[in-house]
């Protein structure tokens, strides 16, 4: 079947099977390989994208379900001039990524969190990111980056 959706502001169409997952449509059909697949039980969050403004694990949604939707992936997160957005920049500034594989999902989840809750506490950040697994950073710098992106002073975190 044919599906059409707005992806990162552009109308995109493609032929999919009924069983095609949104993540596969993004990666294989649209070649938007920033969205990653890290598990097969919807646990890891590497595949988080925004569908109609909501954070969604794109491995839990069929491409057909997203027909007509407005989808945003990590490729659409930078500013119009190509510079890193506030959240992306905070991840770089605070070393919130290492291997980079979970990063797109983390960035998309963090963006959704800050939209809902512009000044989250540490506990709120940790709770919100429970569905995103990172094996590299121990979460320390991810939580710090998200709090910094919300405009909070993180200079005293874990100060000795």
């Amino acid at each position: 079947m044919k599906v059409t959706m707005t992806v990162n502001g552009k109308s995109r169409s493609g032929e999919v099977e009924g069983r095609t997952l949104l993540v596969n449509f993004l990666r294989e059909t649209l070649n938007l390989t920033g969205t990653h697949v890290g598990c097969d039980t919807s646990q890891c969050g590497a595949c988080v994208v925004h569908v109609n403004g909501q954070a969604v694990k794109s491995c839990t949604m069929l491409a057909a379900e997203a027909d007509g939707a407005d989808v945003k992936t990590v490729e659409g997160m930078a500013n119009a001039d190509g510079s890193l957005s506030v959240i992306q920049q905070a991840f770089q500034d605070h070393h919130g990524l290492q291997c980079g594989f979970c990063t797109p999902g983390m960035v998309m989840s963090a963006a959704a969190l800050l939209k809902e809750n512009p000044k989250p506490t540490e506990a709120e950040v940790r709770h919100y990111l429970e569905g995103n697994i990172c094996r590299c950073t121990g979460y320390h710098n991810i939580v710090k980056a998200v709090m910094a992106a919300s405009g909070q002073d993180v200079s005293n975190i874990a100060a000795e």
Partner: protein
Amino acid sequence: MPKDHGIGASIKRREDVRFLTGAGNYTDDINIRGQAYVYFLRSDVAHGKLNKVDTTAASAMPGVVRIFTGADFAGVGGLPCGWQVTDRHGQPMKEPGHPVLAQGKVRHVGDPIAAIVADTLEQARDAAEAIELDIEELPAVVDMKAAVKDGSALVHDDIGSNLCYDWGFVEENKAAVDEAIKNAAHVTTLELVNNRLVANPMEPRVCVGDYSRATDDYTLYTTSQNPHVIRLLMGAFVLGIPEHKLRVVAPDVGGGFGTKIFHYAEEAFCTFAAKACNRPVKWTASRSEAFMSDAHGRDHVTKIELALDKDNNFTAIRTETYANMGAYLSTFAPSVPTWLHGTLMAGNYRTPVIYVNVKAVFTNTVPVDAYRGAGRPEATFQIERVIDQAARELGVDPIALRRQNFIKPDQFPYQTPVAVAYDTGNYDATMDRLIEMADIAGFAKRRKASEAKGKLRGLGVNCYIEACGIAPSNLVGQLGARAGLYESATVRVNATGGIVVMTGSHSHGQGHETAFPQVIAEMLGIDESMVEVVHGDTSKAPMGMGTYGSRSLAVGGSAMVRATEKILRKAKKIAAHLMEASEGDIEVKDGRFHVAGTDKSVAWGDVTLAAYVPHNYPLEDIEPGLEETAFYDPSNFTYPAGAYACEVELDPETGKVTIERFAAADDFGNVVNPMIVEGQVHGGIAQGVGQALLEGAVYDANGQLLTGSYMDYAMPRATDVPFYQVDHSCATPCTHNPLGVKGCGEAGAIGSPPAVVNAVLDALNSGGIKVAHIDMPVSPSRVWSAIQKAKA
């Protein structure tokens, strides 16, 4: 004022931009025109005789290109093991075959039986269901101690037992150790399980094989920490492809943690099938497949005895360990419980005699090999748990007991009784720093506050030492390694002054693309942005051994320094010629070559241009061009060490443990990029906390993997860990590599599990309950059960 340039500066990572914008290039992002997909039909029983694998009907299914079984690999080599351990009696370990696809028997859940290549993955999967299998199930070998008893079923019939080796170290010291234990004033004994873990890098393994009929060249794209090692093992031992016809590329790799060191069957298969099918062949592991095919880690069962004299000095350590090898020997599996474990049993202490016995056992489980720390976490856990228990039994302060037995700063270099000689260290300094950072003075007050809420609070402190910078080739050769463990770098200076460093080290999260240029920038006085790092491609970098064992900077970085020194020597000759000065008078400062004591200078770019446009050039003396290669083989291991403290709150009603504080004081020697180093420690701590509280791969008695997905295997999540305090200011630089660096990648995972478990036991014992030990993962149910048992 912190540095903003060169060695010691926390420069932001340049690789982040591509990862943050979705522009990374991971193996699964690679698609080659015309590629087919492979799906592996894997055994769902742990142990069985393969009576029939009938692919007739499946081969006729839509889209199927070809189906391969073990028979197709009869003329091909098996997967080789890279390390041969010699047992207590001087005999080589048992080394059974490891076929690419199962032949005759299946030996673990996940063992690949057939490989279906089809136009699409869905077609390959559908066809797999049409393969007719007749597997005669055999009794599964799961428990290690039962596996080595007479009458056990055999994982490999041809070797006559399930014992891979029975290793003793140091065998000549055994009698002295037995004597010391007999004569001890006190002996503390613990039986410990080091739980089986699954490394779980977030990127599952992927490979794409490609073959060119035009040139008879093969290319394998694979998720590897060491593409040259894969080229060597697969080319020379499995498929018989010479290295000049085989290119292995490991592009962006989404984490490794050890499990992407090894050569896997799927790599050999995709390379082989690309030629057999005359199409590129791609395989992407699902997470479920990763759980049953990635090499697992740890899985030791140990009895440790620590002997002390009447003054509480350690007099001997004796251990007996059963180490699980799984069903086949993975690439470096035999070295982990032996040379990466036994040699670390002195820890940070002056124990005069030590004897370590390790029985490596085959079972019907996934192969077990190196996982972050590899042998050193197992050693550290035993030492630091038994010291804590000894302190409790003797009624002395656990920190004081450690200090009393520390190797003292003036005793370095220190020859341990377990072969290795530590070059530098200052264990009192890291302990002092830790006590301050962790605010141990304030612990009693925090405990009172917890108790007022009906909770228990515990403090766990421990030390660790590791051997990194793996490794002196001549030494490891004597110990059974079948490879050298040097590293390489080519430094190519271009005509306009930009530099490309081609390194055998591989970055899969460690930030080499940022940190390596900092070293060269420091040496040449140029900006980091002029240096680019190329890695992960055997067609570009010289033969190198890759990234593991916290070796990249200590060994790969040292190779880069050596190559850059050669560049500098030649560049100085060119500069001297250009300025008609003596070579000995040339100094390098801020990217310019100066004649000492004069105002004469030439820019870096003038020198590099002269090297490639040699019109005014000492051609009779030196060749044109500016490119140098160095191979660096370390003369010793490096010995990072430190002290860790964990503070937990424990709910005695539920057994739930919460980590309230975690502090790490590490000695990594010199540090190139502190931000990256701290990030490595954070990640290591989380993995250690995961091992201590959450993670555990569990097999049932039939060899079924019960923890085969993230639904059952508990990965640490953001809510499971606190902010960590980390410090690396107590630095004693390594004495034998040019950067004075020791390595930081594994420390967190090595140092943290005993801190967490010691803290839990401290909490429990503070509540008037006597508990000597709880096995990891220290889950709420285990804690609760221990409380109930102690009360009963």
